[in-house]
């Protein structure tokens, strides 16, 4: 695929810009000689139609939720309502500078405050910060809060360990380590859940907390959740809940009622804001009462009908975002919550969990299902043993030929050749059935025509790409012709 650098001609323009009213040299004199740019950056030079056609062509090489079924486990690729896109483009939001005085931005503060209140209610926890810009940023903020909490209580550096189930998302250990904690892995038991005995063995005075994903990355609900959080609290630790999988129990259960001290939301998963090809998302956190004093500043407070920013929090961890977080993402999430109401949210979890279980039972006879029990919004198959020499990667690439986005593969790490499938609530049954048919057909092909899998994808813009070459001889920017 040509890049924009391969298009256009020197001197072409895409925009009509105002002219300068004085010679460039006169303006450039304001810049000290040493700091004046000597040669311009090499940027493409294209006409507007060329530019638009280039990106239109690029867009057609992509697969989005609007293209088709996207059962990417752990990512909750549900439909992104179009109304929200328009609302997030309202000039009353987009043209607002975050450093304007409070009284000039009451509408925006109302959005933040309302969303905070709803998120508190959904989490069943008394405090919220909207600043984290993504799930992993929410995790990091949560780790910072845990650190501050123990610092304030004089329990640092003793409490320096974070317990993590071996099924955790990679962001969890990375976030804990970034905040300076040592990660201790907890094995899963035969049910695929936290091994209570292992937990007890590891709970000591050095434990700052545990990071749990509920339901876990196998799509299984931690049935012992109350016991787990009780044990951790008894040992003086705090409980962090990764909220990536909230779609599984939205409108039915609250992390606060399970013993969570910190819970992060992924607005770009559960609350239908688009993922943008890798962001921006938003990762607000909700916290329990003991952590309230440490939340980031500013806090949005309501006094009568007026919203105000409160910076008076002497024990705060400080800012984790230069302003208020990913505001336009929050506008979309607020619209979603208002549209659904309680009943609609309850339907989300019902439909998401039903769809996942439906796919699970229909696929389990053909594919290995290492943990065969009621799942929540997702489940994990193994591509192992389908046929000699066939790997999960081959199955995934063959699904592309059938017009589907592949599931998450090779995660969680505790299942070999994992295929992690999350249908979400927004797919019609016909689509789920078509996906099942494709998966069954692929299993048959694996035995009868393995070359179809090994050579897949055939119906994509490119054939299978050589990732080893990209790593051995990295080409990470446009190779300009010499001279």
């Amino acid at each position: 695929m040509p890049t924009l650098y391969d298009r256009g001609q020197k001197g072409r323009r895409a925009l009509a810009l105002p002219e300068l009213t004085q010679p460039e040299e006169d303006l450039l004199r304001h810049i000290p000689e040493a700091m004046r740019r000597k040669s311009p950056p090499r940027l493409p030079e294209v006409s507007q139609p060329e530019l638009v056609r280039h990106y239109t062509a690029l867009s057609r090489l992509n697969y989005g939720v609007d293209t088709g079924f996207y059962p990417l486990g752990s990512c909750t690729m549900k439909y992104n309502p179009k109304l929200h896109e328009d609302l997030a483009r309202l000039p009353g939001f987009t043209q607002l500078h975050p450093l304007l005085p409070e009284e000039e931005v009451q509408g925006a503060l109302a959005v933040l405050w309302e969303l905070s209140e709803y998120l508190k209610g959904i989490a069943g926890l008394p405090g919220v910060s909207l600043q984290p810009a993504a799930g992993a940023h929410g995790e990091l903020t949560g780790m910072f809060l845990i650190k501050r909490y123990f610092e304030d209580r004089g329990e640092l550096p003793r409490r320096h360990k974070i317990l993590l189930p071996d099924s955790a998302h990679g962001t969890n250990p990375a976030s804990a380590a970034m905040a300076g904690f040592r990660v201790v892995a907890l094995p899963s038991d035969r049910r695929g859940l936290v091994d209570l005995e292992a937990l007890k063995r590891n709970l000591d005075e050095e434990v700052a907390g545990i990071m749990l994903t509920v339901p876990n990355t196998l799509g299984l609900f931690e049935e012992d959740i109350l016991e787990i959080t009780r044990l951790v609290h008894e040992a003086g630790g705090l409980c962090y809940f990764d909220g990536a999988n909230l779609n599984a129990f939205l409108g039915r259960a609250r992390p606060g009622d399970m013993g969570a001290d910190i819970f992060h939301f992924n607005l770009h998963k559960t609350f239908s804001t688009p993922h943008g090809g890798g962001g921006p998302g938003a990762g607000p956190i909700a916290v329990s009462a003991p952590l309230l004093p440490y939340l980031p500043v500013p806090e949005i407070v309501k006094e009568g009908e007026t919203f105000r920013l409160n910076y008076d929090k002497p024990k705060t961890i400080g800012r984790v975002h230069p302003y208020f977080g990913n505001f336009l993402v929050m506008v979309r999430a607020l619209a979603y919550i208002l549209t659904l109401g309680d009943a609609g949210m309850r339907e989300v979890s019902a439909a998401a969990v039903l769809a996942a279980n439906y796919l699970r039972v229909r696929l389990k006879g053909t594919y290995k299902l290492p943990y065969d029990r009621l799942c929540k919004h997702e489940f994990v198959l193994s591509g192992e043993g389908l046929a000699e020499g066939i790997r999960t990667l081959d199955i995934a690439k063959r699904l592309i030929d059938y017009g589907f986005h592949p599931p998450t593969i090779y995660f969680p790490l505790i299942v070999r050749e994992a295929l992690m499938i999350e249908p979400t609530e927004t797919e019609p049954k016909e689509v789920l059935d078509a996906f099942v048919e494709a998966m069954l057909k692929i299993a048959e092909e694996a035995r009868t025509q393995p070359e179809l899998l090994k050579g897949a994808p055939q119906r994509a813009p490119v054939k299978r790409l050589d990732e080893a070459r990209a790593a051995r001889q990295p080409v990470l920017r446009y190779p300009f012709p010499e001279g």
Partner: protein
Amino acid sequence: MVPKELRYTKEHEWVRLEDGRARVGITHHAQKSLGDIVYVELPPPGRVAKKGERVATVESVKAVGEVFSPLSGKVVEVNPAVAASPDLINKDPYGQGWLFALEVADAREVEALLSPEAYEELLKGGG
């Protein structure tokens, strides 16, 4: 694919003993489970490593293999060829794909290394 003249570790490293020195690499099994190796990080020559200490990293596209020093000693030589062409480890794990050589500090540690037979047993056990 377990040469008889070498010794092994549970972490899938091989050791070739050459009068007072130990040449180290990763086994055929290890390179196979990593897949196409794309990057190798070697210890600086002169570094003194303890047995079991992490001294090198071997990366494929989607996995990272840590190499632990099978013996205590000083790194006296590293293989510049694998740094430039990491795929040598895939092509010839016991030959051109060697990683580094140590000056053995404690000969008794050699006794604790696995024999080819013991390593084969380990592989059969799925380990």
